[in-house]
C-alpha cells in the first residue's frame, strides 16, 4: 500500500480514501512519541508536539476502505445531487442493463 499526500490538488491515483485524521492515527502508521522527538532534537526544552495527518490512503484494486472510514471525494470532483422534484416520468430512462 502506498501513501499519497495531496496538497490542494487532486491526486491521480487508483483509489483514494480520505481519512480525515484530525486526531486519529490510522492503523499501521507510526507516530513518534514526544520523548523520541525530544531526544532527537537534543533536550526537553525543544520538545515539539508531532501529529501525523493522513489525508489519503491509496488502496490497491480489490480492497475497500477499512470499516468506518468514509470515502469522500473532494468538492472539486463531486457535488451532492438532490432527489428530483416530483414530475412526470420521462419517456427515456437510462438504467443498468437488464432492468425492465
Amino acid at each position, binding site marked *: 500500500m502506498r501513501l499519497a499526500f495531496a496538497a490542494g490538488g*487532486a*491526486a*491521480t*491515483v*487508483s*483509489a*483514494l*480514501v*480520505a481519512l480525515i485524521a484530525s486526531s486519529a492515527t490510522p492503523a499501521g502508521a507510526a507516530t513518534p512519541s514526544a520523548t523520541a522527538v525530544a531526544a532527537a532534537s537534543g533536550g526537553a526544552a525543544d520538545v515539539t508536539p508531532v501529529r501525523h495527518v493522513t489525508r489519503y490512503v491509496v488502496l490497491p*484494486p*480489490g*480492497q*475497500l*476502505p477499512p470499516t468506518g472510514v*468514509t*470515502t*469522500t*471525494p473532494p*468538492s*472539486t*470532483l*463531486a*457535488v*451532492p*445531487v438532490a*432527489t*428530483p422534484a416530483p*414530475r412526470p*416520468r*420521462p*419517456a*427515456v*430512462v*437510462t*438504467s*443498468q*442493463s*437488464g*432492468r*425492465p
Partner: protein
Amino acid sequence: MVSEATRAPSRAIGGGERGITSGRPAPLRAQPTLAHTTHASRAMGGRLAIHLAVPAAAERSGEGDARGVARRVNAWSALLTRHDPASRLMALNDDPRRSVPVRPTLAAALGWAKEAARMTGGLVDVTLLPERLAAETGPGAAADAAALDRAWRVRPIGRRWSAVDRAPGTRFDLDGVAKGWLADRALHLLAGHPGAAVDADGDVAVRVAPGDRWEIGVADPRAAGDLLAVIALGDAAGSSSIAGRTWGVATSGTSVHRFGPEAHHLIDPRTRRPAVTDVVQATVIAWSAAAAEAYAKSAVVLGAVAGLDFLDRAGVAGAILLLADGRVLALPRTTAFLA
C-alpha cells in the same frame, strides 16, 4: 417482437418547414412543431426504445423508420451475442485458429472494444468472459483462462473482411460494449429526423433538434420506478452547444446482475474478479452512448474517488454516481444538465 408506439407532444417552436428523408442529416435550424414518438420493442435480451422528434405531419413516416431501425438493431445484436451458439461472436470464440476472418459488423464492434480499452486504460476488457462466467457459476469456469495471453487485435484483410488475431481459447464478451455501440449506430440511421433518442437496454444515444429538449431519467436501482435524477439535453431556446450534436447517456452498475453477496457481472481486469467498489451505479453523459457506457463501467470499477477523478480527466460532460452508503454524487459540471 413486441412493439408499441406512443406519442407525446413536444415543445411547439417556430421555424422553417422541412420534410424528412431518412439517411440525410437534417439541417441545424429551428424545426416546425415537433412531436416525440416512441417505438418500443425488445432486443439484446432487454428493451429497445426508439424515440423520434418528428413534425406532426410525419409521424407515420417516423414510425416506419423506427420499425426498420429496430429490425436492423436486432439483426446486428444477433451477430454479437454470446447467448446464441450460432452467433458470429460465438463462432469466433469457438474457433481454434490463432487468426480468424470476421465480417464487418463483428470487426467494427471489436474495433470499438479495442478503442474503449485504450480510452479507459484497460478497464474495459472484452476478453473477460471466463471470469464473468465464473462469477455466475463458480471459479471452475475461469480455471483454464488464468494463464491465457489476452493480447488481441483486429486487422483488415480485404475490402470487407478483417481478421482477429488472438490466442486460441480467448473468449470475447461484447454484452455491455455492444449495447452502447448499437445505440449510436441506430441513431446514425435516423439522421434524417430532426431529433432522436435510441435506448438500447439503458444505454441511450441522443441527437437534439434545435429548440427541442429531451429529458432522460436516471433509474434508481433501489426502487423500481424511482429516479435518482433527470438529465435535460437541450432547451426551448435551442442551445447551439447542444442541438444537432450527438450525445450518449449510459449507466453501469453492480446491483442488477448479482449472483451472490460479492459476485456480480462487472469484472475488474486488474484482479479478474468482480470489482470491489463503493459505487453501486454510475451514469455518464458523453459524446456517444458507447463512450458513456465505457466510462460508466470504468467509474464503477475504480470506485467513487478515483472514478470521479478519472471521469473528470476524461472530459465527460457529466456523471452521476450512487454510492453504497446511499449518497448520490455528481461531477460538478453535471449540474448544467439536471432538470
